């Protein structure tokens, strides 16, 4: 399958085995997964604990190598890249958000947001920066260090950092996991707006049906395989699909 112009990230026949293949102690975290995410889509990945969500995300983001299969971001085949090229690709084409420990404790909010640009030596688009900090309501926090901010503020700073370089795709692993529902919802709102208004692509792992309902599609994993996809999800349709998964 050729990567096409509308595709942001794709994994083809991806398998990830932890430990040595064949040994009894080895764990197959994902097996033979194929998934293609089109540009401008917001995808949520759900599934029971241990189903391979994080592993899938890591492999799609090029943080970890597949045991078999291949991944491409934009038109670049990751399996051909060495560590340095992968790193440089991440700088410019990939954004990240994590559940916690998103920010460097030694840098203030503004430095944290601009870090991807600093690393790739890119020019700062001041208008874009101002727009983001307005949108995320962190304008008055820019000179604060992470430990001086609330969890919600920290996650919004992380969102700004993920968006600043206009990456091809943003990977988020339970970005609202540590937030109360109000700040969680406002963050998800922002993520969805960035997809619909700015054409951003987002792949998000979550346990929360409410969070998943902000996405365009919900991919359901079980035992390392895609078992179902819910299109135009609502909270209810996601819960139903999850229940189906459990039975």
């Amino acid at each position, binding site marked *: 399958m050729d990567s096409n112009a509308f595709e942001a990230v794709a994994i083809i026949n991806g398998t990830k085995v932890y430990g040595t293949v064949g040994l009894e102690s080895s764990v197959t975290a994902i097996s033979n997964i194929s998934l293609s995410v089109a540009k401008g889509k917001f995808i949520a990945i759900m599934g029971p604990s241990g189903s391979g969500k*994080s592993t899938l*995300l*890591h492999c799609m*983001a090029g*943080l*970890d190598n597949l045991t078999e299969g291949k991944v491409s971001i934009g038109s670049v085949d990751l399996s051909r890249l060495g*560590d*340095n090229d992968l*790193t*440089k690709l*991440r*700088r*410019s084409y990939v954004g*990240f958000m*994590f*559940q*916690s*420990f*998103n920010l*460097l*404790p*030694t*840098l203030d909010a503004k430095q944290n947001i601009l*870090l*991807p640009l*600093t*690393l*790739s030596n890119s020019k700062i688009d001041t208008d874009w920066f101002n727009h983001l900090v307005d949108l995320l309501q962190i304008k008055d926090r820019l000179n604060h*260090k992470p*430990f001086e901010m609330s969890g919600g503020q920290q996650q919004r700073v992380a969102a700004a*950092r993920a968006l600043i370089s206009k990456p091809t795709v943003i990977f988020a*692993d339970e970005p609202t996991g540590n937030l109360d529902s109000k700040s969680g919802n406002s963050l998800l709102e922002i993520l969805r707006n960035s997809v619909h208004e700015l054409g951003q692509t987002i792949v998000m792992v979550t346990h929360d049906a409410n969070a998943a309902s902000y996405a365009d599609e919900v991919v359901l994993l079980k035992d390392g395989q895609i078992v179902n996809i819910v299109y135009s999800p609502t909270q209810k349709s996601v819960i139903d699909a999850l229940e189906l998964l459990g039975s």
Partner: protein
Amino acid sequence: MFKTVLSGLKSHSRRLIASSLAVALGVSFVIGTLVFTNTLKLAMIQSFAQGDQNISVAVLPRVKTSAFSDRSSGKRPELPLSMLNEIKSVPGVEAISGQLIGPAVILDSSGHAFSGRGSQFGVAMPSDSRFKWIEVTSGHAPINGQQVAVDSNTLATLNLTIGDTIKIVGISGLAETYTIVGEINVGLAKGFQSSSVAAFVLPTAEIVTGATGYREIDVIAKPGISQTQLATNIANAIGPSAVVETGAQKTLNDENSVIQRASAFENALLSFAVISIIVAALVIANTFRVLVTQRSRELALLRLIGASKKQVFFSIILESGVVGFIASIVGIFIGLLIAFILHTLFKSIGAGLPSTSLQLSLSTIIYGILVGTVTTVVASLLPARTATKVSPIAAFGSYSDTNVGKGFTKKRIAWAIGSLLLGGFLILANLGANASLPMIAIGGGLILVSYMIFGPLFVKPLATFLSFPFKSFSVTTNLGKLNTIRNPSRAASTSAALTIGLTLVTLFSVVASSLTASISSTILKNFPYDFIVTSAGANTVPPTVVTSITKTNSFQSIYELRTANMEINGISVNAAGLTPNLLISSNPTVSSGSITNFTNGNSVVLSDSFAKKHKFTIGSVVTISVPPTTITSKTPSFPCTVIATVSGVNFFNSVNLPVSVFTKYDPSIGDDAIFLKASKIVPLSTAASRLQSTIDSYPLLRAQNVGYYVNKLTSNVNKALALFTALLALALLISFIGIANTLSLSIFERTKEIGLLRALGLTRTQISRMLKFEGILLATIGALSGITIGILASYGIVLVLHAQGVTVFSVPISLLVIYFVVAGLAGMFASTIPARRAAKTSPVVAISYEG
């Protein structure tokens, strides 16, 4: 509890490796010193015993001199030559031999003084091979005045063998040719280590060395006569003028003097070992502090489930005890290795050590274990106390290493200011005429304490200053800088270890450089001479040379300078005898009196500090006496009038006499130097060639310009500096291990952060560069503080030494810059392993949230 501790130890044993190594190295210095000096002691004792083995009775000068007495200090009490025959006729004497020793310089094939081995001596060959203080190892002993036996090391170095001829210069300054008939072995115990020794028949030895007496007369008893009986006979015959010892007593006395002498050497080495131990203690304290912080959640959990403060405290102490014990054992092995290397080195430079195996005694082992374990436990006391302060609630919170500095409580500030003031007071109060080194050391220690408390304040500005040149460089250096200042107290205590070492190195360097600069500036300013004639080695310029130079009619000034040990009103001093105009024309700062009458003879000029110390006043008449050269000779003594006191001239001695006085009372003393200014009516080149042809027949003499003379005077200062720096090298090495240690510890706690940076796009190389920059910063912060403190401290010392003639404060800037740059590079090198490990961090760890 013990089990918890052990499992804790296991789980972070990797984090303790570097700090254990620091302790082990500190211990190894102690062990290495003890093993080496014990081995040396035993070797020397054995060698003495070997030399003394056949001796029944030894006769020594009444004034006790150790077998090691400084040979270069010129004449010392001796037994008169006539005593040999006196003793020979005592009933019961079978064989007798006198130890006759004096300067004799061997020339190499090009006719220059052979300088490959330390000092050079001529001795009288013992009359009987049973006297073992000199042993013929091949060939035979000299039997006439044309023959000589030379020590095997010198022969090997000069590529000479038995049958060859050799040129030797004696007290006359003129070279004579001898035939080599034997190779001799002179034990280290005889004080001849790394010297060249030439043995002659007795009459020749007397002529060559100019010796007027024996240092010792050894006697072998006839069969059937006991040592005590013979000793009594001899004592009765010669009266109380000399000491008579039996062979057994002599062996015992020699042994004691070896032990005494070795202890001084041992203590000097041990004091440097102590510095290493202190630095290692800092590294350990730092490690435990970081471990306690990193484990605060674990500790909180322990407290939550019911561990008492006491239990927490003792768990840390127990842990440090185990670490200290293991490190000590490792240290003992490294110490043995150090001793082995030193021993091999000593042997290979031909120090003539009898082969003895390394002496590792049980007490040495216990000593090493105690030092290592106690140091480690003491160093962990404060961190252990901190651990007890972790509240159980911390089990719920998250831990961040940023800004966990304890802040400046009133108590800490009080401690800091208190120790700064007390330390400063101790140093200032103990400087000056009667300086007390231990008190100054304690003062220095107190200032270090206050530096440790205030240090964190300086970390941020220093780091900002030091990384300024790299500002535009890259994001990695900026991150490195931010990481360094995130926990200033940790950065400060890490670099403090290096600060100690560099403070001392800087101190030595600046004082040495000031000393050198003072000597050279005084000489260059006050001695505008064209040539200075000196002799090679410890020999002096023969008194006859001045007369020959005068006869060339080429010089307008011919000034002599000689020195000798004398007593002034009973106080021993190294007095200078000089041509009066040498003193007058050098324009010394006259504090009181006038030097114009110095030409009058029987007048003495004192240094200001010496006069003050001993309360000599202008116009007072003092008694100068020349110590006896042989025990029966009378002490010549004469009155002199104090005419002036001078200051600021470090070139002269405390007591300065006109050279005529010297000549009058001991005409045999040669000149240390002759200062010459060419006459205006003769071209300089003519004067030079006439001078050269005058001294040509004296192979040891050299006419040099003033710069060379300065070098000769200052070369010992630079040698001492090199030695001090070498002895501090281990402390410096330990402090760099400390830097590596802090970095790897912080990598353990920053794994997620590094993972995050990797995920965001920092390449492995950049991660490694970031850590290397942290290493550079930590090292240069320590170096800069050390160099600064060292300069300040040495300024104080130079001020105090002003009266002793250190008038110039000279900072060897390029040397200090080299120290700084080397420290930076070493810091970078120290961070190599942690940086490599950090670069391996997988970006995935940033996203997994456990821990």
